[in-house]
């Protein structure tokens, strides 16, 4: 009796072992792809899956939805610690450094350079820089040429009798126009709330250009000194926050017009990336005339934020080469053209700069070229060493948010609020960089 059981047990063990060996030798049958969901990315996800399955029809792509409304680093750091990361995951410029440091993403440059079908030199350099860590590597395949550009409500400008923005406009001129709009139409100009209270006003891509445009910076070049209390930085921040505290042209943080202030026609200007045109075009019927223009200039020139989302191969990818086959599709001319033709972004490839289909895209916006022209003004978020966070997350983000809140809502002076934020950030930098 016992020997019979033993025999059955041995046979089962052999069967299990044999199955395991067979599976390990084959290429994975399921490919795990973690990504966000929503109209802004669904088509891109679908295109990547489709292109991959043309190459590997036997592999099932399993999409794992990420909650992109929250801080992605938390679940992905947990997965990295558990060794259960998907093969490819969504990422964005803000996550490039922390994901690389946390061992979530891998350097994809060796794959890119070894791939004869892939031409990295065709990608705009400043966008590629968003994917590097300390100027090296390739930790994200970016999705599109996302430079913050000025969307404006043409109808409101005309109703107020204000001159329409041009490529040569200065911020001073725009502010004057905004005052006219405020006076004549009682509408605001600068959108401040995009998804949360004051979130857009405290978006680095919107305020950092003002700091740089007044000759300031947030952190010293060597990354050791917070510069929020330098005279130039304070001047830029003062000029920026004056739009709320002095000129009354910025959307108050507590003003909820029942939706996005620009889309409901209550704010004349929205600074955002090209993919937003999809949402504005989606208004049916179009409630007002609108267009886009390159960012206005500040005393030191034209500056605007740039950044994009993308994808990366993870450290737990079962077969990194297979993951590369999946991910590289994002920068194929077909995908880039399709993204643009869907008004979901502008192409990252220089070779598509003069593509007649793209240049001849039907408006609005009529001035679609502004998105590309504006690329020359793009600046990337400064990098903070140590573990104090970034302009998107962590202590640095919290301190700056609190300072903006104190100035715009609490009536505290720019000097007082940002000097305090600067001291707190400096204390953190001193502590964590010395460690």
């Amino acid at each position, binding site marked *: 009796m016992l020997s019979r059981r033993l025999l059955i047990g041995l046979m089962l063990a052999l069967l299990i072992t044999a199955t395991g060996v067979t599976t390990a030798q084959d290429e994975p049958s399921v490919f795990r792809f973690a990504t966000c969901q929503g109209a802004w990315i669904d088509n891109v996800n679908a295109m990547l899956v489709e292109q991959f399955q043309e190459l590997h029809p036997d592999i099932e792509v399993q999409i794992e939805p990420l909650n992109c409304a929250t801080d992605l680093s938390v679940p992905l750091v947990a997965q990295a610690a558990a060794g259960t990361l998907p093969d490819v995951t969504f990422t964005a410029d803000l996550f490039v450094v922390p994901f690389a440091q946390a061992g979530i993403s891998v350097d994809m440059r060796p794959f890119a350079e070894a791939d004869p079908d892939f031409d990295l030199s065709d990608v705009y350099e400043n966008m590629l820089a968003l994917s590097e860590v300390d100027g090296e590597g390739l930790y994200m395949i970016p999705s599109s040429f996302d430079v913050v550009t000025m969307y404006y409500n043409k109808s409101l400008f005309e109703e107020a009798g204000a001159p329409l923005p041009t490529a040569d406009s200065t911020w001073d001129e725009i502010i004057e126009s905004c005052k006219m709009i405020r006076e004549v139409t009682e509408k605001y100009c600068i959108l401040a709330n995009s998804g949360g209270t004051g979130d857009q006003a405290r978006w680095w891509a919107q305020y950092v250009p003002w700091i740089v445009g007044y000759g300031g910076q947030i952190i010293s070049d060597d990354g050791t000194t917070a510069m929020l209390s330098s005279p130039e930085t304070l001047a830029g921040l003062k000029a920026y926050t004056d739009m709320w505290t002095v000129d009354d042209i910025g959307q108050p943080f507590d003003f909820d017009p029942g939706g996005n202030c620009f889309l409901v026609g209550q704010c004349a200007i929205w600074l955002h990336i090209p993919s937003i045109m999809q949402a504005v075009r989606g208004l049916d019927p179009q409630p007002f005339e609108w267009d886009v223009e390159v960012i206005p200039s500040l005393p030191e020139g034209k500056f605007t934020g740039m950044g994009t989302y993308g994808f990366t191969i993870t450290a737990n990818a079962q077969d990194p080469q297979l993951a590369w086959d999946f991910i590289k599709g994002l920068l194929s001319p077909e995908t880039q053209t399709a993204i643009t033709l869907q008004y979901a972004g502008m192409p990252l490839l220089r070779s598509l700069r003069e593509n007649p289909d793209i240049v001849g895209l039907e408006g609005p916006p009529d001035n679609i070229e502004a998105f590309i022209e504006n690329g020359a003004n793009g600046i990337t978020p400064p990098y903070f060493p140590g573990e104090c966070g970034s302009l998107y997350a962590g202590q640095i983000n919290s301190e700056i948010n609190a300072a903006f*809140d104190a100035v715009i809502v609490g009536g505290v002076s720019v000097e007082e609020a940002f000097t305090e934020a600067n001291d707190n950030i400096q204390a953190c930098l001193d502590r964590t960089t010395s460690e």
Partner: protein
Amino acid sequence: MAAGLTMARPEKKRSATFWQDTLRGYLFILPVVLGLLIWTFGPMIASAYFSLTDYRIISDPEFVGFQNYVDLFQDKAFFQSLSVTIRFGLMFVILSQIVGLAIAVLLTQKVRGLTVFRTFFYLPIIVPAAASAVLWKYLYNKDYGPINGVLNGFGLSSVNWLGSPESALFALVLMAVWSGAVTTIIYVAGLQHIPEELLDSAKIDGANAFQRFFFVTIPMLSPTIFFNVVTGVIGAFQFFVPAFIMTEGGPVKATYFYNYNLYEKAFKWLEMGYASAMAWALFSIIIVLTLMIFRSSPLWVYYEGETR
């Protein structure tokens, strides 16, 4: 002789059924015991250890002794969030007792449709915290919120409930009082257990309704008040969801609750070691406050049959 009479203790023989029942009993409670050990005591022990480390999730914990606790006392945000929570706790505990008791008194009156009223007052408990936060955010909206609509209807000007640092904390207190229907339910139960004969005796002795309420009902209800105050204080120090959803700690940190600060340190700044120390500090604060209330109870809590 006496020594020889020592009686042997009767040996209890356990039957097989007894042992089977015992085993079965343990098996039945095993999931709960395991759950407690793994999901409650496990994380508590882990957080006690993490509180002594510099742990930022993405790197291994590094032992730093009591440094995180020392840092707490030098952290402005710690005291700021503690101050917000204490102010909230004071307002909430006092208001929720007054409102809860007042409603409970109304709900124990003999009127038609009493069960319907009781159901209405119980409803806030079954609404998920996140859902009620979203609902109240709409109610408090400065521009189109129904509360301001009512105020405007009476010729009063709108209040910037959540947008103003002056009113945001009080707005959350009001919401928390609305959500605290459990207090009312416990008061209803307490009121129903006050012997009628005591109230009748007082009435015969010439006590009016006011006197009966303050000199009979309240003392008899003091154990219930004691219970509600203790749970109210604990609840106030654990307040988080509405501040997270409705105000994000703002405006200008007016609703920067202790738990919001803790959440921010743990999940936004990834300072898990420091956040663990904050959690243990919170635990200690709650224990101290609870003990203080317990110690004060002989002065104001009266138990039936007790002589003083």
